[in-house]
């Protein structure tokens, strides 16, 4: 298991870009069902921009990597998800400060800061059928992690369960809320992309060339 350092952060974001690209159509289809069908395209554009940025200028620090990601997400994704993920990564970056590597509690703090940023901007609560429903259980699960890897694993598992649990919910925030009862029976696309990104964080804990 590699340390959760700058190289890990870069691997995390590159792996996120890969899985988002892989699931682009799935995210589009989920958003088509209860939104406007752009979530996969928007996220793919934003994460591709992060990769391009990293290729050009590799991140110098852990917090720096997340901040660069925040800026690219803010300026390239657009829609609701852009400012929300952008804020999450910005707050996460600030929470990390100048730490060179993350242990269990630091992972939990980072995720909590990200979630709090999303809630501050978007004002959604648990059960509103948004990405908050993946972030919140992830934050809770990470809190008990023995080390950084365990915290991330628990968070990713919880985010995936949280995303699946959005299915029966009636949306109360975002575009899906316009559908009223008709929004029930579909997964929330932002919760699904959150789960993908947190799973990527776990995958990235494997050594680069292992």
């Amino acid at each position, binding site marked *: 298991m590699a340390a959760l350092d700058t190289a890990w952060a870069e691997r995390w974001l590159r792996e996120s870009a890969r899985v988002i690209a892989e699931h682009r159509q799935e995210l589009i289809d989920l958003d088509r069902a209860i939104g406007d069908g752009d979530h996969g395209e928007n996220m793919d554009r934003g994460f591709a921009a992060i990769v391009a940025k990293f290729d050009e200028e590799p991140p110098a620090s852990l917090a720096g990597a997340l901040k660069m990601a925040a800026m690219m997400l803010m*300026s390239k994704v*657009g829609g609701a998800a852009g400012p929300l993920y952008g804020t999450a990564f910005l707050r996460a970056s600030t929470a990390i400060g100048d730490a060179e590597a993350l242990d269990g509690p630091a992972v939990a703090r980072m995720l909590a800061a990200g979630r709090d940023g999303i809630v501050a901007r978007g004002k959604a609560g648990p059960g509103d059928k948004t990405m908050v429903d993946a972030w919140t259980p992830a934050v809770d699960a990470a809190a008990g992690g023995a080390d950084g890897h365990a915290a991330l694993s628990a968070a990713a598992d919880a985010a995936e369960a949280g995303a699946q649990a959005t299915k029966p919910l009636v949306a109360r925030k975002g575009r899906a809320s316009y559908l009223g009862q008709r929004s029930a029976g579909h997964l929330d696309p932002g919760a699904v992309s959150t789960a993908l990104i947190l799973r990527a964080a776990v995958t990235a804990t494997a050594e680069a060339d292992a």
Partner: protein
Amino acid sequence: MKKLINDPRAVVDESVEGFGLAHADLVRVHPDPLFVSRAGGAVPGKVGLISGGGSGHEPLHSGYVGRGMLDAAVPGAVFTSPTPDAIIPATQAADGGAGVVLVVKNYTGDVLNFETAAEMCQAEGLDVRTVLVDDDVAVEDSLYTAGRRGVAGTVLVEKVAGAAAERGDGLDEVEAIGRKVVANVRSMGLALTPCTVPHAGKTSFDLGEDEIEIGIGIHGEPGRRRVGLEPADALTEHLLTPVMEDLGLAEGERVLLFVNGMGGTPLSELYIVYRAAARILADRGALVERSLVGNYTTSLEMQGCSLTLLRLDDELTALWDAPVHTPALRWGA
């Protein structure tokens, strides 16, 4: 998916470039980050007015840049709010020293991105106000939703607030006039067909050969309910009744009646809807004093329409009638 496009990902850039070439006398296109401003630049001393949002609603918003209306517009990706890195330079380009009013349609994405941009402009010392448009009565406005959406009524907000700015009103006044229009405008729409976002390559929702979706937004979102095929007169009633009710329209009141096409509906059908709406309003004793019929706030090639009513008084009527000279709306100039 059959469209007159090249690369699905270049649709917005190429379209706005063509728009700039066709209207070089009126607008200037700034390619990266993408925004559109008046050809002559900001007007010194005038309050700036800008708007923006996802593309796919043409001529909204870029088509309304010009004298008497917007100073700048920020087109995002198709159906996707633009980002602060484009909104900020557009706001700066619109600033003639008297501050800038942002007309924002009420969608989470637009609200968040414009909010971020506004904060950053404020931090640089630029006085920025926001007028939030939420005219769509198809969406229940409650604590439990994202609130009402902004739809075709946005055109009327931009026209009237633009005229106020052009005649020299101050920042507070332009903001207030914008809010006054918002308070007096209501809309509702329907779709006969869905639309296809170029990069998605699939229709935004599926609709049977004999189904009509009532209460749609302008992003190909599904609506509130489906009905079977009905005559235009009945469909018009489905739209106009909630609009009149929500507006609390009383006998003898004056209105502007706006029949908006969603992009793929022929003008001839919009006039059939106009006829039906005018009859219903006449029965109610409302006075239709101004009208607008055409494709002004669209959803790509969607077939369908929306109805908008704006309650008029002398002030709003005068600002509506004031000269406007933009690619998509022009009179008196």
